[in-house]
């Protein structure tokens, strides 16, 4: 759709159907290959010498290659491809299709997913080497990748939802990989159920869309919303329902609680799923349905405000964590909120660009954390320290990732974060809506906090004395190589979004928002200011954590309650547990059980008793007395009458003769009279 616009600018006549790239037709192979590799690894993985990883890596390599080729075709000017096959139909209005829609957004997502997944596959050969469930791990990695790619490729909401749910299921399996510990399986269940809560709203949103528009096809839905065929309050409600799915999947307030606990899974899983790919599904969906959201009244404002709240809360939480993976988890929540906020204020290109860059440096950070954990055998930063000398590669790549996250020039995070802040500023100055101002302020505050907590994390990890037990050593090449690849990506991809000349804004646009968010970079003040904020935070962090000046004992101060609040994660988990889970678990379940026993079983037993109550008198009275009376009575009557009639047989022949003669006389008289 967007390409058509682009093509219009460069040709005199409107071409009805633009040229499609050869490989673009085959993009459905990209999700199919990992799914097939799932089945292959599942059935044959244990028999292979390498326990299955080669199948996954091969599938993903081909997938990455295809994605690159397809993307190049798109970038060279070919048109987006949409194809669909009908899966089943009910009646004439309800069609469920398999469909693919390969355009720039899909292409970008393909590149991200395939790259990060491939790197995680390679990384895991080292990290999970001693794991006893190596094969099934790779099987699920493949399935997850295939599902994510399918979801991104989907051209209709139903297929998107299928992919959405599948990645949730894979996340459940992968988080619970170390299920021998009860808390790991509990974390997996928590992730799945929390996602389920949001998915309920999401599903109702999809139903609502069908009720309003009569179709599931995404392009059609966007088109209908733009025309105004569907709109008004009902569209707003539908959009908010769709947003429910985003809240759970992309960890916004208040359903982000599963993401920190999901760190119980293996670190490669966290890198792939909970940093780069699965959690951005919500952002992707919003970007896909962006036109619909725009025309859905104040839905985008709600999105923006929720995102603003989330990014600040999560950043504060990241500040006090000891577990390095949790720091990164809360950081992810905060950055996802950044992306959602961007979309909320209309900075479409900026939001997607941040998704793109964040995938790389967050995956880098997680894999680096994995390397650290692998060396120190502990997640906690208090067990680390001074590792810059022991693990140079990990140290350097982790620093690159941290600076990228903090948004320091020329790393990728600088460009994407500034676009978002710029977009918020533009929206605020143009539309003067409160949501945009809130987002602007929150974004700046979060940028500060982000740099601060990353500084803390790096200082605690790499500087100072080593607090652990046995001497750590650098990780093997299979783990370090992906780190460097991602570091290289972090350094370079930022320039894809360079203002004016960068190609990203040509690739990812929506009509009405062309070149938005990038023109503000004409103004040099904004990026300078943002960099200053980040540097200030880094300076503060160094002072607090490295040089240990300006210590402030918060626990003894009157603000101790703030620390307690944050320490207990704003009591949100407690609220869920005591307010929702326990009442359902004990009260609601007990009530349901009672109603099942008493009401349902009572009804069933009552029906049975009723039937018996009818059956017994039927038997006793109707059958025994009435019917048998009739039957026995008939027999008895026959016997009785026979008993009476037998007296005629007196044995006396003369008696018989008397009857005979009387009858003869009678008959003769009868004949005589009638003839």
């Amino acid at each position, binding site marked *: 759709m967007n390409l058509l616009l682009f093509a219009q600018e460069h040709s005199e006549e409107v071409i009805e159907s633009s040229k499609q790239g050869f490989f673009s037709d085959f993009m459905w192979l990209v999700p199919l290959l990992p799914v097939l590799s799932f089945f292959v690894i599942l059935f044959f993985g244990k028999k292979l010498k390498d326990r299955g990883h080669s199948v996954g890596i091969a599938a993903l390599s081909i997938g990455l290659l295809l994605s690159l080729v397809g993307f190049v075709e798109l970038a060279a000017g070919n048109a987006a491809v949409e194809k669909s096959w009908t899966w089943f139909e009910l009646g004439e209005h309800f069609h469920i299709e398999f469909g693919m829609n390969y355009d720039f957004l899909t292409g970008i997502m393909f590149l991200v997913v395939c790259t990060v997944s491939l790197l995680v596959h390679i990384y895991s050969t080292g990290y999970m080497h001693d794991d006893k469930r190596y094969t099934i791990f790779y099987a699920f990695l493949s399935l997850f990748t295939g599902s994510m790619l399918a979801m991104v490729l989907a051209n209709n909401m139903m297929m998107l939802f299928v992919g959405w749910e599948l990645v949730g299921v894979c996340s459940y399996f992968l988080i619970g990989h170390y299920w021998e510990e009860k808390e790991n399986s509990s974390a997996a269940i928590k992730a799945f159920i929390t996602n389920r809560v949001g998915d309920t709203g999401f599903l109702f949103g999809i139903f609502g869309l069908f009720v309003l528009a009569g179709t599931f096809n995404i392009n059609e839905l966007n088109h209908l919303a733009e025309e105004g065929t569907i709109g008004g309050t009902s569209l707003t409600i539908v959009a908010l329902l769709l947003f429910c799915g985003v809240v759970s999947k992309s960890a916004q307030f208040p359903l982000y609680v599963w993401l920190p606990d999901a760190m119980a899974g293996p670190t490669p899983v966290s890198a792939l799923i909970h940093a780069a790919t699965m959690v951005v599904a919500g952002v992707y969906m919003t970007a896909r349905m962006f036109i619909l959201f725009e025309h859905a009244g104040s839905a985008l404002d709600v999105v923006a405000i929720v995102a603003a709240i989330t990014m600040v809360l999560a950043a504060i939480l990241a500040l006090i964590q000891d577990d390095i993976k949790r720091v990164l988890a809360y950081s992810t929540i905060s950055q996802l909120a950044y992306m959602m906020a961007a979309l909320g204020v209309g900075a479409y290109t900026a939001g997607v660009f941040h998704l793109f860059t964040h995938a790389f440096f967050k995956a880098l950070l997680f894999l680096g954390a994995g390397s650290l954990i692998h060396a120190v055998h502990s997640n906690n930063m208090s067990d680390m320290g001074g590792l810059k000398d022991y693990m140079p590669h990990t140290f350097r790549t982790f620093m690159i990732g941290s600076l990228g996250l903090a948004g320091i020039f020329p790393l990728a995070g600088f460009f994407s974060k500034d676009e978002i802040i710029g977009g918020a500023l533009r929206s605020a100055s143009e539309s003067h809506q409160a949501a945009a101002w809130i987002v602007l302020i929150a974004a700046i505050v979060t940028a500060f906090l982000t740099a601060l907590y990353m500084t803390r994390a790096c200082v605690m990890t790499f500087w100072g004395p080593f607090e652990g037990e046995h001497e750590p050593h650098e990780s093997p090449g299979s783990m370090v190589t992906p780190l460097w690849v991602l570091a290289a990506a972090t350094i370079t991809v930022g320039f894809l979004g360079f203002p004016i000349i960068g190609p990203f804004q040509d690739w990812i646009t929506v009509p009405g928002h062309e070149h938005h968010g990038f023109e503000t970079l004409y103004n040099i003040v904004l990026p300078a200011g943002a960099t200053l904020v980040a540097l200030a935070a880094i300076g503060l962090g160094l002072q607090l954590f490295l040089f240990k000046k300006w210590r402030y004992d918060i626990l003894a101060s009157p603000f101790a309650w703030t620390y307690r609040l944050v320490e207990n994660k704003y009591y949100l988990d407690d609220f869920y547990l005591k307010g929702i889970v326990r009442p359902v678990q004990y009260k609601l379940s007990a009530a349901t059980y009672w109603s099942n026993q008493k009401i349902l079983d009572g009804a069933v037993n009552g029906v049975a008793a009723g039937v018996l109550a009818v059956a017994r008198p039927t038997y006793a009275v109707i059958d025994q007395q009435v019917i048998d009376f009739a039957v026995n009575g008939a027999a008895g009557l026959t016997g009785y009458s026979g008993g009476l009639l037998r007296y005629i047989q007196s044995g*006396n022949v*003369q*008696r018989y003769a*008397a009857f005979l*003669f*009387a009858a*003869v*006389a009678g008959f*003769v008289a009868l004949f*005589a009279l009638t003839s």
Partner: protein
Amino acid sequence: MTAAVYQQIVFWVLAVVIGFSAIRVVTSSNVIHAALYLVGTLLGAAGMYILLVAEFVAWVQVLVYVGAIVVLMLFGLMLTRAPIGKGKYDNDQRPLAALCAAAVFGVTSWIMIDAFEGKSIDLSGNVRSTAEGIGDLIFSKYVLPFEVVSMLLLAALVGAVVIARRDPSPGADTRSAPGKGVQE
């Protein structure tokens, strides 16, 4: 007087005899008397045949009926130790029997009177030699019934002998007295 009058007188006399004798047959309390009253009835019937210009039938009647059948009856009475003198020979259904008889009489006489009212038999005129005529008929037109009747008589004869024969096994009682052959 005319012949018709004589005929009527003869008829009525014979009718009275026949009627009286018949009634005495069925009401007599002495079996021998009943048999003898039957003789009277039969002779009266023979007279009636003669009146009806059927003398061959009349004399055959006397010969066979009176001479053989009644004698046979008397033999039967003798062999069954008919009691001498009065006895009770009427069973319990006399009223019913009387009713049946009356019904039969009523019906048949009514039909016949109704059918043959006013018709009469012409007893004057040519008297044919009935014996010759009967002989002609029997051996020409009715020869088959004649032969069948003779077969019937043969069968009756043989049957009677067989029925009344004594048990031929040795040691069986050959006396006609009751007691030894009674089976109960």
